[in-house]
């Protein structure tokens, strides 16, 4: 059971969060200018690496913040990468 570092609430058990997927899937600024192939890649494809990936996580039953962490998908080692905006 993962222990995930929420920037506001600190370390919490995985059952308080929802995984938001790969963070580098940024929504294109102007989708109309995307080719069909680029748009399909954004919609459906993932890097899905075996190793470190930057992910969104949502502290849904806590402070409801969305935040990013680096997580190793093989060892589940987690590195917090977001400090709170003061």
């Amino acid at each position, binding site marked *: 059971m993962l222990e995930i570092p929420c920037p506001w609430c600190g370390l919490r058990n995985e059952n308080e969060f929802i995984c*938001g997927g790969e963070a580098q899937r940024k929504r294109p600024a102007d989708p109309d200018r995307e080719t069909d192939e680029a*748009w399909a890649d*954004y919609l459906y494809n993932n890097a899905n690496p075996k190793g470190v990936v930057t992910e*969104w996580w949502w502290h849904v039953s806590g402070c409801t913040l*969305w935040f990013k962490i680096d997580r190793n998908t093989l060892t*589940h080692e987690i590195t917090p990468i977001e400090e709170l905006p003061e």
Partner: protein
Amino acid sequence: MTRLANGGVVNRQRRLNFRFNGQEYQGLEGDTLASALVANDVKVVGRSFKYHRPRGLLTCGPEEPNALVQLLSDGDQPNLRATEIRLTEGLEAKSVNCWPSARFDLGAVNDWLSPIIPAGFYYKTFMARPWDFYSRFIRKAAGLGRLPTERDRGRYERVFHHTDLLVVGAGPAGLRAAQVAAISGADVMLVDMQMSPGGHLLFHSREIEGKAGAEWIAEVTAELKGRRNVTCLQNTTATGYYDHNMVLAVEHEPEAAWLRERLWHIRAKKVVIATGAVERPLVFPGNDRPGVMLTDAVARYVSRFAAVPGQRAVVYTNNSTAYEHLELMLSVGISVEQVVDLRATLGEAERELVQRNSIEVVTNGRIIGVEGRSAVRDVRVAGESGIRSVSCDLVCHSGGWNPLIHLYSHAGGKSVFDQESATFIPGEPVQAVHCVGAANGTFSVAGGLGEAAGIAGSLVEELTGKQLGSYSSRPEVAEIPYGINVIWPEKTLKGKAFVDFQNDVTTADIALAVRENFQSIEHVKRYTTAGMAVDQGKVGNPNVIGLVTKELGEQQGSVGTTTFRPPFMPVSFGVIGGSEQGQLIIPARTTPITRWNIAQGAAMDEAGANFRRPFYFPRAGESMDDAVAREARAARNACGIYDGTPLGTFELQGPDTAELLNRLYTNRFDNLLIGRGRFGLMLREDGRFLDDGVTFRVGPHHYLMSCGTGAAGVVYAHIDRLLQTEWTDLKVYLVNVSAGLATMCVCGPYARDVLGGVETDIDFDESFRFMDFREGRFAGVSVRIARVSYTGELSFEINVARRHALMIWTTLMNAGQNYGITPIGSETSGVLRIEKGFVSPGHEGDNITNPFDAGMAWIVDMEKPDFIGKRSLRRDLDLGGERQHVVGLLPDKHRALVADGSALLPDPGGSGRSGFQGHVTAACFSPTLERTIALALLKDGHHRHGEKVLISGLEQSCLATVTAPVFFDPQGQRMRG
């Protein structure tokens, strides 16, 4: 009876009667079932799984492979180990998987058939007929115990716990680690699976720092119990090590007496594993005969339970620990006929001990046979001076020690082969886990104590930052230095030599697997089933690995272990899932009107997001269809009322809310006026339906959005994610107010009359237009009322604070008495929806249609710069091609029965199409039109109006005409009037 007159930790005043395999016996309080059987000279305790060979006790602990029993007297539990059952008055048990009895078992025929049923024989035969022809018999022979049929009444509990340092195992090393760590003030938790602390010190009287073992244990335990920062749990098994130092443990008899077991989720900052080791058997022909036991087990039965397993013993070993027990055995009258040592030379301490007690030792010795099918009679020993037969009734053997590295391995750590102790010990730890003592391959008590103190001290210093001063002293303990030399048996052995007692796997099976090119250890395990039984290879696996390595001609240690998987010991499903039974498995969410609905006798069913909603309100004698028809007619012709509270309701406030809505919905919202609402459609990025609903503009920067029940959670996540991860520049606050704001709908031609009958300052006349909302006082409380309609009728939706909801509801019911007000269920509102052809994301959406397919082009504004899903819609439009469209279906037979999900096929007599054409998304009998109607997805449906298609259901099929997807009041005059 071979119970010693004194000694052991048993209460000789308290005799306990028990029955085993139909025989009456007596044991003492403090006995386990196993020790009581030993004290009563019971040799055969069970039958092996495959060959049904008679089996005796091999061990004295939880790793016991042979003595699996059905505990009849306590819940008829299957597959319990006799070594783990505390003896109680009136206990009754019998051996598993033998018929008619353990003494005489017909299954033993397999022992004679063994030549033609080697490992994996079932892959090579049983192919002449379908497997189920054979599996009927094979399944009966398989399976060990019998599962009871009546309900398990046990109460269980699940808890989360956090600690700084967790110590697993309260043997000498574990006790010392906890003792040292506790000094620092850090939170320490000590967990141990035995009934009382002490580990192997309970079984072997050893002196530590000049004190007797038992005295040392009592001292340390008292010290720990006296500290507030220490939690001690006995009779608690740590069963698994999971991510980020989460350890799962099962507490068997918690002090909260109404509980049978408690499951602990322990999140620790640091973990010390002090789980000790189990003795490894030697591999020799007949090593499974009743009366062949591990040396450590013999010592435990004698010293702990004063029960003597045999009178004339032969000791067979390849290491020094066997010699530690010789004097104990002699002291209780066991005559040591001979010691057979596989090694060429003995250690100096061992030689001195055997000379002192004039015991005959055969070095370079091998046991090449054991006689006695249900009790050992004699053994054949091959030494330098030839082969001799030695008569005996007990064979104590020791092949070395297997450190219990299960938890360390679950944590992700790899094990390494230690040549000196010839076993697998922990390597580089993964996660914050540290092994000490025998679990770390340190087989001396003194060494274990030193390690434990050193590691525990450094860990708590790291945790607390405090210096603890000197603590890693290495006490002197009287013990023989550990020495071992593992010699694997040659292939020329005659007779069955077992490596896995429970699954009956012999050295011949291992050789066969390797010969057939199953050379990975995982292949050998799966092909021979070695290590796959209930004991999961705790005693046998290292022997399997050693033999495979020898067969491959590799260097010992080069072939690794199979994967260690939780749980360390089997765990009852009761404690895993039994704490949230019945209504607690999934929350049943309620509204203030739920109890009223139930009181009215509504047929409740599951709606979205775990809400229970009334499906229809049957009156006496009414079927569902009758009730739904009555309710629908009331809504169309008089007045219907339903509870809309489960719908999602969100407040959006901020200067950029209009821009946000423009990007979320397919239609425009930036031109919505205050006091007005608008129906909006929300898509996913892939252009498919997410949800639809009405949003009102309450103030300059203040909107109220409503959405479908099931979609509420998904829509909230969708918007919140966009605000926090993509459009972080938009100033909008999103607040979920679904539960706090009750929503009630009054619809139908008399809706205005019913509302008029209530004291209010709100005017409900024609100036209150469709999609307007007004705020004011209603029945004495402040409300917001909107003209929104999901039924196609004139309809008013009343929003009121939850605390007033029931009062408003009953007020409306009273006001509507003489207007035929009728509560309508969601089955009925489903019928009304189909009659109006309102598209539902969950039915017609079906994850594949886009708004154009659903005939909702009117709500899609492709001129907007961007909205979620727009790019995907453009892709759909550009690619074109045949798509499934939403259509209406009118069955030729007016009263045809059409089931949801029925498939659509071409009209047999009609157009040249073939194959699957689509399916019915929602069908019903329409009381308004007095005929069956349906909505459906049909290939190229928009262009096939007027065509006939065949509705193919499981029970019956019927022809139907394709129409536009609306059957009643297409212009919507009733709801807009």
